[in-house]
């Protein structure tokens, strides 16, 4: 393939990845990594480097909008970030000791279970009947935002703090171990376990994935995994894509976002189970 064609196709794919990532609170690696593998049969190191760049670009590009619109729950993100970072450190430490194949299959099955839970759950626009746990109150995790699609202020209360924290720790562990898929675990933890509104879950996950990725990005850069010819179209494309993704998030109904998220969840679950069966890990 011609370098110029490669550059342009990668740029276009990254626009889509950035848009989806900003909407769903995930990094866009699901789109970019298979693309790189298909187009250039690329070394996995460059693929992971590109994935890290796409995560940071999605997070920072979208955050500029979400901070102003006050949808991201900064306290929730910062509190859960403690679990993610420690989980990631443990994951990186034990990466060589645990069978990646088995883990991939287990986490894939966990995601499949989460998808099933989402399908069976009542498709409400906003979570209803959430009492709000005393622990969440003590940690000041409850919040409010203005929903442009509903044209009203949404007040929400959170629950299930220990479960959410545990799930976040697992999300960090997975990103340290397998380098992928931590965004979906973050959204699931906030959506299913802590009962946050969908928009709060995806934007807060969006904030968190950038912080987590930045922690390891320095190491990848020095290792030479972030190639300028790959990183440039990914970063520029993703940043452009986030402009569209953030506008979509503000205007779409939460039920619509949940449907797109569910589709992504099923794809990633299948990907991870497939990796477990075929052994194509790292």
């Amino acid at each position, binding site marked *: 393939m011609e370098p110029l064609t490669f550059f342009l196709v990668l740029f276009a794919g990254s626009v889509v990845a950035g848009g989806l990532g900003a909407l769903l609170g995930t990094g866009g690696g699901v789109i970019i990594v298979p693309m790189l593998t298909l187009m250039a049969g690329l070394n996995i190191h460059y693929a992971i480097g590109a994935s890290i760049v796409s995560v940071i670009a999605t997070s920072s590009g979208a955050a500029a909008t979400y901070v102003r619109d*006050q949808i991201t729950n900064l306290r929730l993100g910062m509190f859960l970030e403690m679990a993610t970072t420690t989980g990631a450190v443990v994951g990186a430490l034990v990466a060589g000791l645990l069978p990646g194949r088995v883990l991939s299959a287990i986490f894939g099955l966990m995601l499949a279970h989460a998808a099933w839970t989402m399908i069976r759950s009542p498709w409400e626009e906003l979570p209803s009947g959430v009492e709000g746990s005393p622990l969440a109150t003590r940690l000041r995790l409850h919040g409010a935002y203005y929903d442009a699609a509903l044209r009203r202020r949404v007040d929400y209360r959170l629950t299930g703090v220990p479960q959410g924290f545990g799930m976040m720790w697992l999300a960090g562990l997975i990103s340290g171990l397998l380098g992928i898929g931590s965004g979906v675990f973050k959204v699931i933890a906030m959506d299913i376990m802590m009962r946050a509104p969908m928009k709060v879950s995806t934007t807060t996950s969006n904030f968190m994935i950038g912080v987590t990725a930045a922690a*390891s990005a320095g190491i990848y850069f020095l290792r030479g995994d972030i190639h300028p010819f790959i990183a440039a179209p990914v970063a520029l494309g993703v940043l452009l894509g986030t402009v569209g993704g953030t506008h979509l998030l503000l205007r779409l109904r939460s039920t619509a976002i949940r449907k797109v998220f569910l589709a992504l969840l099923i794809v990633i679950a299948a990907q991870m189970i497939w990796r477990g069966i075929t052994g194509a890990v790292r």
Partner: protein
Amino acid sequence: MSGPQGETAGQEGVAPLTRMELVISYGLRIGVLVSAAIVSIGVLWMAATRDTGYANILPHHLRDMLTFHQTSGPGYFPTSLAAVVRGAAAGRPYAVIGLGMLLLIATPVVRVALSVFFFLAQRDWLYVGITLLVLGVLLVSLFSGIG
């Protein structure tokens, strides 16, 4: 549909943005725009000169460009802060792209650092502590790679 009232409805927040939130929002926007501009300059410079700055000419084959872990030749690019800064100062396209990339990587770190001040301004000591902890882990893992 696009009446003046409909436009302002979407901008309405739950509470007025605090000064710190404005600083964080503008800081993020400037960081992202400047890094995108620097990367674009590097790309355009590379296209105009048909040179990456680390080989005599832009390779025609993707395979030559993306050879893994070369220390010289057509696939080579700078991987340390010092090499990036030196190369960018010398106007080498790959180093200019690398500079934009490092700035992009720094934006989430700066955001967490600014959040410390956000919670300080609210006198929310619990979250000042939590944010400092996150910032500490972040900086340690960033620099443990360099050390």
